[in-house]
């Protein structure tokens, strides 16, 4: 098992290398290679989850064994939480690649597109797997530099401007994270997360560590586009080509933003009340402000991008509530419920927001516009896009039996049980505003009077099949509410976060 772990990084990285070298000589090489590799990784992720991971599996890069209990090698750690996020990355990555097969034909330099996509996925998988602070920074930079280039892929005025803005803010975030890593190394003289965690158990509460934690929250908050740091997201996500928007919104802000925050604050630092409060407040602000910024938008992709901020707010708020309950010694079952709701919403958001961006791409592909006021009456000519986007819209606004309803329900139930009544009310309100905003999208895009004089045909097969698969996932993920399925997929990930010190002891004891 442990020998399979590096495949997640090696295979996409090898694609990113081989595609520019061989792609120009062999026709169709780039798309076949990348889609096959991502299909393989998706199957591998499903296999890992369904075969059940009892203990974290660690792979020591270079084969350096730990000496006297001090880890020397860079560790790649596969446990319940990372397997869960890897599944999201590979699944959405595969479907976005499938979608790109016909979508990306209107751009030049197809090979570069696939190479950059492979690089981005390699970076994200690395961030999810790594157990080493500096390695985290390196993989993070691989992922975000590829995404900077992909945002600018259209090289028109808006794309370039969005990419520059994204690079400046993303660069500041990376430097804050690097600075924080330096601070941690200064204090502990080690880079291994498990080792740092063991050393920090007793000396977590000084102003030094608080400063480091605040640097990390600002850095990863910028990457995850939480509310005070959100300015780059709507520009970058709406300017990128649509499959990339789906990757950025569906996966990148989770893998390099929220996942890294969760991993570091649960498994590396000892939880403190102040930090949990800050995380909950940031999540709540994102949830509320994001949706109000979204409702006035007329650019379809920009509307979806603002909703990403709001929906990620749900995830961060739920996990923050769990943190507060754990610190205050509240009921552990309620804390576990809140965290489970957050993680459940994370995979749901990846699926439905990925699907919505693919829908937006399909509409742009056939009509050439993203402005909702210029659309209308697409219902008859685009049956597949209409049905799938209806499913995704109902899912994001929390209508049963779609997955979004169940994860929001869990979050709200956990908030009520934990005594966070205000947050529960806010979550319901935001869900209603989301519904209103998506009704606007449905009405203006598909059901109003048609404004198009020319004939519009349905999108090509690879684009429609990936949308259909995603809408099936929107329905199928509702099954996660049932105990049998939940224990296989969700509970291992929640346990990793609940048993905060377990991670460190198993890794250092290896």
């Amino acid at each position, binding site marked *: 098992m442990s020998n399979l772990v590096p495949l997640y990084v090696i295979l996409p990285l090898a694609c990113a290398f081989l595609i520019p070298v061989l792609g120009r000589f062999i026709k169709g090489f780039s798309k076949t290679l990348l889609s096959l590799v991502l299909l393989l990784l998706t199957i591998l992720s499903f296999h890992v989850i369904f075969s059940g991971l009892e203990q974290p599996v660690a792979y020591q890069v270079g084969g350096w064994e730990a000496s006297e209990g001090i880890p020397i090698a860079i560790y790649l750690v596969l446990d319940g939480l990372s397997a869960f996020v890897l599944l999201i990355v590979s699944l959405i990555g595969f479907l976005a690649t499938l979608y790109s097969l016909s979508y990306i034909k209107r751009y030049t330099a197809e090979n570069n597109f696939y190479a950059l996509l492979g690089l981005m996925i390699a970076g994200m998988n690395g961030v999810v797997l790594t157990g080493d602070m500096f390695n985290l920074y390196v993989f993070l930079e691989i992922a975000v530099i590829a995404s*900077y280039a992909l945002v600018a892929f259209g090289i028109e005025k808006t794309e370039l*401007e*969005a990419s*520059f803005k994204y690079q400046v803010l993303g*660069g*500041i975030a990376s430097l804050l994270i690097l600075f924080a890593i330096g601070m941690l*190394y200064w204090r502990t003289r080690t880079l291994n997360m498990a080792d740092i965690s063991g050393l920090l158990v007793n000396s977590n509460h000084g102003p030094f560590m608080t400063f480091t934690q605040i640097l990390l929250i600002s850095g990863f908050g910028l990457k995850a586009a939480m509310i005070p740091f959100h300015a780059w997201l709507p520009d970058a996500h709406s300017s990128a080509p649509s499959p990339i928007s789906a990757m950025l919104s569906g996966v990148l802000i989770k893998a390099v933003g929220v996942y890294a925050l969760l991993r570091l604050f649960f498994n590396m630092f000892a939880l403190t009340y102040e930090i949990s409060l800050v995380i909950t407040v940031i999540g709540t602000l994102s949830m509320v402000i994001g949706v109000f910024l979204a409702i006035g938008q007329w650019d379809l992709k920009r509307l979806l991008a603002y909703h990403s901020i709001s929906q990620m707010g749900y995830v961060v708020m739920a996990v923050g509530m769990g943190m507060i309950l754990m610190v205050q010694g509240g009921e552990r079952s309620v804390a576990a419920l809140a965290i489970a709701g957050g993680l459940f919403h994370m995979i749901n958001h990846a699926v439905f927001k990925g699907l919505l961006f693919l829908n937006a791409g399909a509409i742009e592909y056939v009509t050439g516009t993203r402005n909702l006021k210029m659309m209308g009456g697409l219902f008859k000519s685009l049956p597949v896009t209409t049905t799938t986007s209806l499913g995704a819209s109902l899912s994001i606004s929390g209508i049963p039996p779609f997955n979004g309803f169940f994860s929001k329900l869990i979050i709200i139930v956990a908030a009520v049980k934990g005594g966070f009544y205000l947050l529960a009310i806010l979550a319901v309100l935001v869900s209603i505003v989301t519904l209103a905003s998506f009704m606007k999208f449905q009405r203006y895009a598909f059901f109003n009077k048609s404004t198009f004089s020319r004939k519009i045909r349905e999108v090509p097969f690879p684009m429609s099949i990936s949308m259909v698969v995603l809408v099936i996932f929107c329905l199928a993920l509702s099954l996660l509410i049932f105990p049998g399925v939940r224990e296989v997929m969700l509970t291992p990930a929640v346990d990793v976060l609940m048993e905060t010190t377990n991670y460190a002891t198993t890794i250092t004891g290896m």
Partner: protein
Amino acid sequence: MTVYYMCFLLFLVGLYGMVTRRNLIKIVISFTIMEFSVFLFFALIGYVENGEAPILTRNLPENPVFVDPLPQAMVLTAIVIGLATSALLLAIAIRLYKKYGTFNIREINNLRG
């Protein structure tokens, strides 16, 4: 300790430049200043008073004091990454200049955050 404060000051200088400058190239320069202040910080935390280069030779003094080599290795990696970031930033800045004919961000404002 003073040298650490100076290093942090350099970080703030870079941040100030990024926030206040209006010229794309000057923003990139400020970003590089900020970046190198972090690299300098890494080099500083690896330094040990009166330490030597950590190379094992035949005639070592008794109880040798070595500087910490790990931050130096990290800085080398970070410099390479920083090179990639700066190159991409400058490439985009040049493309923007070709499209708009100016480096002034006041005039490059199609998008509103």
